[in-house]
């Protein structure tokens, strides 16, 4: 067992750090304030090969692995949770299922432009009445000749307003419950498909989270992903992978908050000395960093398992559960250590605290992760 980064990973970290400091951090506050999707950052990430890291070069990817990918999400999220989730949703929730379950034709047609970053991806499972209970899908797909006709709607879809390709779950046979759900690849320009209301959110406000509306959308039969009735299984496996990305996002946000706090406590003076000299500050920081390091090990273990074709569902759930809760705790403490200034938008920790909250909710709430973990035990 070895806990050191390889030379390759060290060089990647250097690249991610330089990119984040120069391109992401300077606009993180602004895109949050303006609730603006950072199209310019996505374009730059495309140019530097950051939108298809774990996929083979023959499918437009960078020929890397999940470890390299989660390290990117972590680094981006240190400065900007929005940018982290854009990459995570695109890579884990749209590229990955096409790579894992798609036909060769689907990979050539969709994965290649997605992994190259020429197209942006999104994933639609959640509905108004089907969140954690994903089996309650109302969106329907009916086969009619060479097409499936989709009707219904999805909510809370990350990247929606800026995505070109969507993985969409819909019921093909209601009587079969979860075994009646199928997965489809939907293009943004299909007739009858539209993007609905944009959510006004607490955090990750640069991320365009919207509703998807399907009104008699004709999806070609060849865009069925996997077999009919396999949609639920595809969605669950996709989310297993997605959780590693979100765990990395949570981890990054937490580390970013610690880094900001360390800077602040060295500068801020009270009672004639810097607040870093107070033991309360020191002990708080020690607890925060210890927990974040523990979260990092869980996240990297899950990525390692995925890269090495070992089972990772349980490990991904643990990583996501722990990293997201640590992220919320650490960002809250970071605000506290900043005192009144931490509550203002002058310092980034208040944004980080708002961004952290969603990591406990999306791609499976903390409660869902506990269900997954305990199911592996009992």
């Amino acid at each position, binding site marked *: 067992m070895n806990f050191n980064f390889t030379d390759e990973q060290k*060089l990647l970290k250097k690249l991610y750090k330089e990119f984040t400091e120069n391109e992401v951090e300077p606009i993180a506050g602004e895109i949050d304030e303006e609730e603006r999707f950072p199209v310019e950052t996505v374009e730059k990430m495309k140019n530097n090969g950051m939108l298809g890291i774990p996929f083979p070069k023959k499918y437009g990817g960078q020929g890397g692995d999940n470890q390299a990918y989660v390290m990117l999400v972590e680094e981006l999220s240190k400065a900007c949770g929005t940018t982290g989730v854009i990459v995570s949703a695109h890579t884990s929730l749209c590229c990955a299922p096409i790579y894992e379950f798609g036909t060769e034709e689907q990979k050539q047609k969709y994965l290649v432009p997605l992994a190259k970053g020429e197209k942006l991806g999104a994933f639609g499972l959640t509905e108004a009445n089907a969140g954690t209970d994903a089996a309650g899908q109302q969106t329907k797909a009916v086969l009619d000749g060479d097409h499936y006709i989709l009707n219904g709607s999805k909510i809370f879809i990350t990247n929606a307003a800026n995505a070109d390709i969507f993985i969409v779950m819909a019921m093909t046979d209601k009587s079969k419950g979860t075994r009646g759900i199928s997965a489809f690849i939907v293009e943004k320009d299909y007739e009858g498909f539209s993007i609905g209301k944009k959510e006004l959110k607490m955090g990750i406000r640069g991320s365009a989270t919207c509703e998807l509306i399907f009104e008699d959308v004709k999806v070609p039969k060849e865009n069925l992903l996997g077999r009919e009735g396999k949609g639920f299984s595809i969605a669950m496996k996709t989310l297993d992978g997605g959780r590693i990305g979100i765990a990395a996002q949570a981890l990054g946000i937490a580390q970013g908050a610690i880094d900001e706090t360390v800077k602040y406590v060295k500068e801020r003076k009270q009672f004639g000395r810097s607040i870093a000299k107070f033991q309360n500050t020191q002990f708080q920081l020690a607890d925060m960093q210890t927990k974040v390091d523990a979260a990092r090990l869980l996240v990297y273990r899950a990525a390692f398992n995925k890269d090495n074709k070992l089972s990772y569902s349980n490990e991904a759930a643990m990583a996501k559960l722990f990293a997201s809760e640590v992220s919320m705790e650490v960002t809250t403490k970071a605000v506290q250590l900043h005192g009144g200034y931490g509550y203002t938008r002058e310092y980034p920790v208040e944004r980080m605290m708002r961004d952290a909250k969603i990591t406990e909710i999306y791609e499976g709430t903390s409660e869902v992760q506990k269900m997954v973990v305990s199911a592996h035990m009992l």
Partner: protein
Amino acid sequence: MKIIVCIKQVPDTTEVRLNPETGTLIREGVPSIINPDDKCGLEAALVLKDKYDAHVTVLTMGPTQADFALKEALAMGADEAILMTDRAFAGADTWATSLTLAKALEKMEYDLIIAGRQAIDGDTAQVGPELAEHLKIPHVSYVEALEKGDDSSLILKRKFEDGYHKVKVKMPCLITTLSEMNKPRYMKVGLVFDAHREKEIKKLTFDDLDINKEEIGLKGSPTKVKKSFTKGAKTAGKVYKDLDEKEAAKLIVEKLKEKFII
């Protein structure tokens, strides 16, 4: 067009701290980087690669850890990388360094050699020009802009304190580049993987060069350091404006008297 970029791995001086007691640099734990002027030289070469399909080789002399800098150069887009490493090369001053580099370069094909103006850990600005002298090729230092001429020449903008020279130079030649000339590109993720998984760094040792051990390394270095000391702080200069010649001359004389220079 074949370009060879000479780079140096240096401690990131922006991260170097001083030992408050001894006044010396604490080098431990300081990350190593590609010297900034050299990195801009590499960027200039990569721009020529993008435009004219030039072949770019990066060359460095240093300890085995310097391959990290070469891998970064490959990940930015260089085609090939060569590491010159041998105990016999150690302790070299600028003369011995440039001679060693020249012995490797004289066996290689090139149209253009690019070196950064100077390294942030030594600040001599000597290795580039010396290298050109050893190789008997023309050189232009302090280049802040570069374009390709119509024949086998380069049109260069050479910086001076109060202006610039526009120089046309025939290749093969050597130029030294300033970090003001461009903003180096980021590495590409896929090229980082290639640099580690597909490309090999070619190694050159003493045995590959036609040279005597006495001419290189510490033995071949005529520079002797007499004393090292911390430079005293200098106050900012003052600029006087809107004076005619007489007033200016009078003011200068006054100031020189004030400081007991005259």
